[in-house]
């Protein structure tokens, strides 16, 4: 059986690291913060791998079915006998897989940052934030309870906010962190309402009970949830869609993706950890967590997931082809790949062979974490060398940065779905799942995979080939061991992670799933991938006029893609023009004139009256006596002639 303390320590160790470095970092651990953070995470990662190994190979399987284990459960807030918010740990295939991914990538980023962030002013703060993030993310994946996941959900949001705005002296970073926080917070409102709807109908917050109550056909909770409807859509579909909106915000799905490209203002290792490998897949994880409910009880909500995912995948891939900031290209690529994971979940069904999409989605999440983290860290090494984010300042770096070059190439091949690399296997599975269940999405996915190959190799050739690089000033090559070791380890992941028989471990119903592999099926995506790569090579391998000419011939499309299809402008229009002018201004007017007006009127009137009558108190005794006398006479007359009797 799993050892609850071991598992609880996986998130708690980074928390301890955060407290240690956050409270004492600036004074005591000014230079050793990185080593301490890395060591703590190393223990955590060891425990995570130990736990996952134990789960998958030892105690997780009962009668050939992976169980959902709850090794730890603690009643935290008890409102009544039936309603309580618990803190617990869930151990099932996806959470076991996620703790390995999170701790591994986080460890790589910790090591990498030893080199990348060296000499930084707020070095210990940086490591404290990293630990906080790792704690929150691990807590998120281990949550056994939908409210608990919401707490950690907000915690990762906060740590992402802190790390995006790490260079707080840059106005753009501050704006980006605010944007990320507000957009995801806005989406989280949907998530919260979704939680309330789901728990209202199921009467529980616990994942296992909730799934069981909302999926078994004879349960009365499910019947009420389906029967009660709002605007013609059942309450269950509403609840799940709202939860998905939360997930879409965190996972940068269209149209809530606008924060992700700007989030690249943070330090590059942070982008690798948070905005590529872990936090942004939280939305996918959330949908996967509630997948039985989506698949069995609310197919409408699931088809929303599929469509949003497919649109995001294609949309982001088109934009990625035109961006020139290498981190932004990677950000859009991340969004596109997460779109892949989303629609893979969306086209999946529950149980057996039909659950291939689910397995494929989790598989892609796993491999994507490897090669995307590698791409970001590689990009970090390039930026470290060139001191610029812009592709135009790069080119011909393959001789200057040999290790980065090779690992980056492997990652590009992997993401492009080059045969026998990790990305190939997971992408094939996704395409197969889409092919089996939804033709339109299959075509979108196919086109996207061609575009993916194109923009990744556009990036690759622009950085490492193209024009020759003229080194200026002092240079340090690839960077130290701290920066190269993670690249090599992640490159190993990007190459070999695909050979894991993922279906054996992760499937919708816990039973092993044999993924069949059809060579003929792979011809189309691989051919498209190769075309993408060759086109990119033809256009970008050497410095020439072709890309500019091509851009000019596609001017309308190119321009709108370059401007990210004006989504940011649309948001600005909606918020600044529509909301500001039509809602905020009238509200401000009402507040200023009516609410303030009433208060000011009371004050002004009082002042006015007192101004007029203050002459009465003159200090002249005899005047007072006259008032007194006159009043007495008037009263006397009144008593005598008016109020008699």
């Amino acid at each position, binding site marked *: 059986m799993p050892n609850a303390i071991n598992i609880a320590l996986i998130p708690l160790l980074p928390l301890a690291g955060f407290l240690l470095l956050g409270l004492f970092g600036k004074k005591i651990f000014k230079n050793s913060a990185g080593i301490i953070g890395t060591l703590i995470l190393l223990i955590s990662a060891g425990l995570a791998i130990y736990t996952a190994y134990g789960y998958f190979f030892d105690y997780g399987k009962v009668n050939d079915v992976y169980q959902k284990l709850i090794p730890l459960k603690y009643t935290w807030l008890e409102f009544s006998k039936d309603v309580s918010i618990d803190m617990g740990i869930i151990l099932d295939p996806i959470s076991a897989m996620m703790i390995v991914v999170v701790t591994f990538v986080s460890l790589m980023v910790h090591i990498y940052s030893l080199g990348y962030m060296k000499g930084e002013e707020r070095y210990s703060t940086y490591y404290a934030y990293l630990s906080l993030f790792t704690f929150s993310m691990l807590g998120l994946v281990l949550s056994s309870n939908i409210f608990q996941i919401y707490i950690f959900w907000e915690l990762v949001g906060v740590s992402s906010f802190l790390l995006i705005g790490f260079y707080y002296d840059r106005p753009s970073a501050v704006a980006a962190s605010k944007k990320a926080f507000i957009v995801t917070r806005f989406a989280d409102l949907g998530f919260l309402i979704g939680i309330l709807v789901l728990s209202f109908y199921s009467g529980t917050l616990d994942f296992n009970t909730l799934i069981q109550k909302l999926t078994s056909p004879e349960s009365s909770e499910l019947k009420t949830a389906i029967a009660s409807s709002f605007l013609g859509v059942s309450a269950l579909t509403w609840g799940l869609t709202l939860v998905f909106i939360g997930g879409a915000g965190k996972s940068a799905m269209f149209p809530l993706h606008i924060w992700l490209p700007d989030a690249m203002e943070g330090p590059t290792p942070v982008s690798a950890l948070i905005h590529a490998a872990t936090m942004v897949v939280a939305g996918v994880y959330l949908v996967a967590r509630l997948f039985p409910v989506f698949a069995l009880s609310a197919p409408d909500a699931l088809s929303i997931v599929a469509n949003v995912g497919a649109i995001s995948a294609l949309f982001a891939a088109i934009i990625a082809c035109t961006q020139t900031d290498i981190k932004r290209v990677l950000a859009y690529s991340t969004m596109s790949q997460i779109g892949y994971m989303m629609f893979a979940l969306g086209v999946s069904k529950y149980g057996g062979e039909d659950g291939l999409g689910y397995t494929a989605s989790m598989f892609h999440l796993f491999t994507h974490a490897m090669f995307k983290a590698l791409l970001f860290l590689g990009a970090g090494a390039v930026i470290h060398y060139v001191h610029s984010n812009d592709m135009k300042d790069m080119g011909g770096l393959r001789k200057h940065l040999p290790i980065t070059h090779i690992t980056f190439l492997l990652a590009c091949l992997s993401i492009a779905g080059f045969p026998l690399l990790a990305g190939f296997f997971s992408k094939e599975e996704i395409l197969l799942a889409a092919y089996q269940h939804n033709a339109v999405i299959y075509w979108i996915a196919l086109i996207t995979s061609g575009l993916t190959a194109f923009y990744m190799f556009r990036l690759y050739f622009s950085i490492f080939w193209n024009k020759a690089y003229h080194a200026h000033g002092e240079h340090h090559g690839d960077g130290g061991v701290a920066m190269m070791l993670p690249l090599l380890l992640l490159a190993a992941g990007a190459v070999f992670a695909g050979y894991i028989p993922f279906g054996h471990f992760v499937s919708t119903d816990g039973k092993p799933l044999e993924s069949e592999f059809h060579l003929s099926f792979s011809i189309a995506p691989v051919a498209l991938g190769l075309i993408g790569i060759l086109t990119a090579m033809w256009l970008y391998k050497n410095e020439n006029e072709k890309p500019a000419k091509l851009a000019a011939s596609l001017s309308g499309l190119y321009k709108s893609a370059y401007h990210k299809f004006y989504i940011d402008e649309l948001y600005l229009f909606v918020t600044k023009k529509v909301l500001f002018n039509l809602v905020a201004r009238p509200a401000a007017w009402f507040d200023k004139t009516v609410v303030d007006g009433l208060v000011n009127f009371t004050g002004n009137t009082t002042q006015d009256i007192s101004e007029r009558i203050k002459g009465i108190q003159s200090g*002249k005794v005899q005047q007072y006596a006259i008032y007194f*006398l006159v009043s007495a006479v008037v009263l006397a007359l009144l008593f005598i002639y008016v109020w008699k009797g």
Partner: protein
Amino acid sequence: MMQPGLYHLLFISAALFFIGVYGFLTRRNLITMLMSVELILNSVNLNFIAFNKYVWPQRLDGVFFTVFVIAIAAAEAAVAIAIIINLYRSHQSIDVENAEELKY
């Protein structure tokens, strides 16, 4: 010789009262104002006595009230004179217009 009736006394009392009021409102000298107040009080006393004698001759309420008023008038005079002396010490004057600033 004619015995003075109630109306005579009330007439004298009213005259005294209005003389007092007039003096209180027009004089600027605090001592004179104090004297005017005494006139007013005495007109009231006279009223009490007159009503006692002519309306309820068997009772003594009016007389007692008069005694009380005399006692209070004495106390009031003591306090007023103390205030006037203090005013004089600080302003070297007992003009009522100099006391205006007491309103603050």
